[in-house]
């Protein structure tokens, strides 16, 4: 319900608490595992992108819950604010946090999210009951997605490497849009009265797979050993989730019919 009237609470599917645990724990475990296992073998850096996918799916679910109320503006705006908050918080977290960087980034993003959520409800008068909570979740998911994809690209989340390998060459812009797409696109594509959580989140996994493939291509700069598993696993996740999305679309559709190819010019005469 992007530009339509006010909607209501999103129903059905996995409970929000489980999604939060999935995103936070999955994201942090993925990022730390990628960081420490990459020291043993750079090939393990793909785990960071798996963490980012957990965060993206969590973010897409939070967007789904808050946007069901109808924001009055398009769904993409909330994905862009997620990544805007996320990129500020994640660079801050990595710069000051050292080994605790991803956790500091998550906390900083949550605080910025809480303030923006409070401003949106109290000052701008949006009056969405779950606005504050959702903004905290969306900011945190954005930050973890950025840190996760950066870790895969650089092989570590230490700030100096991330700065030199991800921020300075501009790959951070790719992360910004790929991560933002993962968070904002699923609900934007699936919204409507027949929206189902599993179908929306299948799109989130699919977008996460694309982001992972892109992160893998970038990590080729650092090491080919890291790039190949990342691209392969990303492509695998993309295929599985896209097949799942297609299956769920057929399940939710009233009827799926083949229209055949377009008629040729002679047939139209």
């Amino acid at each position, binding site marked *: 319900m992007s530009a339509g009237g006010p909607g209501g609470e999103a129903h059905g599917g996995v409970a929000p608490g489980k999604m939060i645990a999935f995103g936070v724990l999955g994201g942090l475990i993925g990022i730390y595992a990628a960081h420490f296992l990459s020291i043993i073998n750079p090939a393990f850096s793909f785990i960071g992108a798996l963490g980012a996918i957990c965060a993206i799916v969590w973010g897409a679910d939070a967007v789904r819950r808050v946007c069901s109320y109808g924001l*009055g503006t*398009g769904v993409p705006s909330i994905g862009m604010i997620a990544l805007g908050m996320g990129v500020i918080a994640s660079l801050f977290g990595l*710069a000051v946090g050292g080994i605790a960087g991803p956790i500091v980034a998550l906390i900083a993003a949550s605080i910025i999210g809480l*303030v923006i959520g409070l401003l*949106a409800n109290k000052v*701008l008068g949006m009056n969405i009951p779950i606005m504050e909570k959702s903004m905290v979740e969306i900011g945190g998911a954005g930050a973890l997605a950025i840190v996760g994809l950066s870790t895969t690209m650089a092989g570590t989340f230490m700030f100096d490497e991330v700065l030199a390998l991800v921020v*300075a060459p501009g790959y951070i812009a790719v992360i910004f849009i790929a991560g933002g797409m993962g968070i904002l696109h699923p609900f934007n594509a699936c919204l409507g009265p027949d929206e189902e959580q599993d179908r929306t989140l299948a799109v989130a996994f699919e977008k996460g797979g694309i982001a992972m493939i892109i992160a893998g291509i970038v990590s080729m700069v650092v090491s080919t050993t890291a790039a190949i598993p990342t691209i392969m696993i990303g492509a695998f996740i993309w295929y599985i989730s896209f097949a799942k999305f297609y299956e769920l679309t057929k399940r939710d559709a009233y009827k799926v019919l083949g229209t055949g190819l377009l008629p040729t010019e002679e047939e139209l005469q």
Partner: protein
Amino acid sequence: MIDIAGILMENISYVLLITLGGMLISFSVHFVPVGGAPAAMAQATGIGTGTVQLAAGAGLTGLITAGTVMQVSDSLPLIIAAGAVGAMIMMSVTMIVGTWVYVYGVGVPPASAKVKYDPITKDRQDLYVSQGTEGHGLPTVSYVSGVIGGLLGGGGGALVYYALMSAGLDTGIAMANLVGLASVFAVGIFFVNAVIPSYNIGGTIEGFHDPKFKKWPKAVFSSLIATFMCALVAVLTIGGL
């Protein structure tokens, strides 16, 4: 651990400049005639896309022009002017091409449904609004308003970028890294300040003649708080290197 109080005291003027820039961006969004999906179908006045996309398009062009000028000059007024002109050109081009599409493609005259007479040209508006629509195309007042929006938004974005770059110049960080970091923070702050006013106006506005324009103090106040926090975080990161 970094010396938080020391860095903040040293860079407090930059924090204030960034906050001012964020408030300018937030204010500028209220000038940009944006109609969202209805405008894309020529059923509402304004450009047919979302506020955030439009503000970001103009603002990022402003960042590019400001960054280019910053390589050859460190004069603040010149950098702000460069950012403002870049964003104004981007807005103007978007609006003129949009107008061609509406007039020659869709076949509707530019008309506002919010006012009876265009405040600038004094042309009658309501006669030209198609039934069942909220106006269409970009009447002169919306066009002028959009250019003012580009001026303020581009200037605000340039101010943010200038402050972030200046905060990092004394730290001895490599130039490529500083430019990357300052641009990313500027983009992040720009998006936050583009979304806040977009929620304030509910996604669509015709320009400064629209009744919704009067709501701007709420968004600018929200941006003051939100940008101040982002500015603290950004300056701590850049100044602490």
